[in-house]
């Protein structure tokens, strides 16, 4: 009885709060790209997204070349999608990735096959977010495995180095690492050597992700029963054979759901490159708001940003949950 009453009260409360939102987002919203109507209306200004979608998706990439980042985005998403299917977890997937990334680089930079060269300062939008995530994870992952193995090593000096690195990076905010990469790194390079801003940010993201992924991999390593190590020793395998063929395959398999969760976190964290002035998806949305004709569209624009990020992250988190159920079943 009380339960039903609670349902009714909650439903009323929910409607009372949701209806004004519905009114704002749908009934009073302006869907045409018409800034004057937008300013006059009391609702959301979806026309802003329609008007600025090119800038939001592709940043300052040359306008007539937009098909290049669009194709690259589709290819990258396709690669990620294929990698999510267990059937494709074969060695040739790595080769496919390598080919795909080469092709994407050619598309984005150009300079060959009659494609005009586009310097990476002009890359932006969704493709930049996806590239930062992809390359960040691709380089951070091997580093993370080394760090995790190092942290569990019985050699005190190596363990101390790895623990020191992991705890230092995890103890400070990502922004401080990004600032470090953008203002401090140039000081630390030999005279005459310059690394462009995108690469510096990418480096900071790799170093950051490696520390967090290392802890996930370490969790996986700890989940391997001692018997597996002893059996590998009994077979006469040396350290590298034991690690590569016995321990790591099992450890990585059990840490896949946790790894996907870390990937989600990392994907969200790439939005911080906005603070050091790179044009990722969030940054292009923020920049497109600078147009004075469209003043007052910020709430709509950021809601749109939230939806885009949500679609990606939610898909990944559903995937991780499915994987988790599968792993639990197949491990018995």
């Amino acid at each position, binding site marked *: 009885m009380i339960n039903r009453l609670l349902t009714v009260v909650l439903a009323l409360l929910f409607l009372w709060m949701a209806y004004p939102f519905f009114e704002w987002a749908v009934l009073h919203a302006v869907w045409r790209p018409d800034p004057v109507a937008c300013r006059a209306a009391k609702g959301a200004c979806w026309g802003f997204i329609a008007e600025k979608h090119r800038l939001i998706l592709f940043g300052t990439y040359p306008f007539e070349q937009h098909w290049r980042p669009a194709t690259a985005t589709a290819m990258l998403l396709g690669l990620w999608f294929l990698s999510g299917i267990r059937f494709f977890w074969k060695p040739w997937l790595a080769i496919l990735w390598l080919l795909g990334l080469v092709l994407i680089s050619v598309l984005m930079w150009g300079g060959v096959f009659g494609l005009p060269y586009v310097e990476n300062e002009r890359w932006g939008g969704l493709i930049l977010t996806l590239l930062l995530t992809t390359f960040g994870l691709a380089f951070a992952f091997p580093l993370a495995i080394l760090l995790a193995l190092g942290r569990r090593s019985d050699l005190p*000096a*190596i363990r101390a180095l790895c623990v020191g690195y992991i705890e230092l990076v995890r*103890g*400070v905010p990502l922004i401080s690492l990004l*600032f470090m990469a953008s203002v401090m790194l140039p*000081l630390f390079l030999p*005279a005459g050597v310059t690394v462009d801003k995108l690469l510096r940010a990418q480096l900071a993201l790799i170093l950051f992700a490696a520390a967090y992924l290392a802890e996930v991999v370490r969790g996986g390593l700890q989940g391997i029963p001692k018997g597996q190590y002893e059996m590998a020793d009994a077979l006469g395998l040396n350290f590298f054979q034991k690690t590569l063929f016995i321990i790591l395959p099992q450890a990585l398999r059990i840490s896949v759901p946790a790894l996907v969760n870390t990937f989600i976190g990392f994907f969200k964290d790439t939005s911080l490159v906005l603070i050091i002035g790179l044009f990722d998806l*969030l940054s292009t949305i923020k920049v497109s708001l600078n147009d004075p004709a469209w003043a007052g569209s910020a709430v709509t624009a950021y809601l749109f940003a939230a939806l885009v990020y949500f679609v990606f992250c939610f898909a990944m988190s559903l995937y991780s949950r499915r994987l988790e159920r599968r792993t639990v079943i197949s491990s018995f």
Partner: protein
Amino acid sequence: MRRLAYQGAALAAAVALAWFLIANASASLAERRIASGFGFLGREAGFEIGQSFFLHYGAADSYLRALAVGLSNTLMVSLIGIVVATGLGALIGLCRLSKNLLLKNLAASYVEFIRNVPLLVQLFFWYALITESLPGPREALQPLPGVFLSNRGVFFPTLTSVPALDGFNFTGGAALAPEFAALLVGLAVYTASFIAEIVRAGILAVDRTQVEAAQAIGLTRAQATRLVLLPLALRVIVPPLTSQYLNLTKNSSLAVAIGYPDLVSIANTTINQTGQAIEGIAVIMAVYLTISLSISALMNWYNARIALR
């Protein structure tokens, strides 16, 4: 022997890398005529800070004092954020365990949506909502007598004075700038979604028979919850909760993006004005490491206190 060789090689590589970086850094500093060291902290900062909670600060004060104001702003927003996030998170975590289907699903949707949107997007959203959608001071909303919500921030009465409209803004009372309000709401709402999951998992981890046994020996439902369920659940909850508190504190550094003068934002201004990048970033890192270690130590102490003996 081989063990020693491996370790020696690793240490040598680390030292070589450090030496290479330091040599390069001192060369480029000499070339740019930047004097290294913390001497600049005593110099006049020359910039204003929008919000300062405890310390009195003016543009004529030193960089050291500016950084101290930044630190106090970071601590302030983190501390209030932790309290609000814990309360909200615990409430939503409990709602997720409710027998009421609607309540359960509403709480689940909250967690699912908030967790999957970057915090920076949420901060921009709240900031836009406050500055763009709230009315100006003249038409300020007044949810409670004496409390005013407007696009200039939140104004509320203190023991000694009450905010009143004076020209284009309020005077008197206490004020929270829009930047602070957006940051606080953003941090609390975001972290609460993670805390909710931790609370839920902690309560689910308690063996049901424990509560049933408590009720069997004649404890009421409330007593069983307070004396048996909570102490058992807390032991599961506290360690992951600690890392959420640390995350909230580190995430407060996103303040720089919406213009709240936290430590990172003031250190950034300092770096831009003085060129002392290495020292500025060293200050940021030292402060955050200290905060991280202190929160860890505090929570470990608490964890040890509530652990089974």
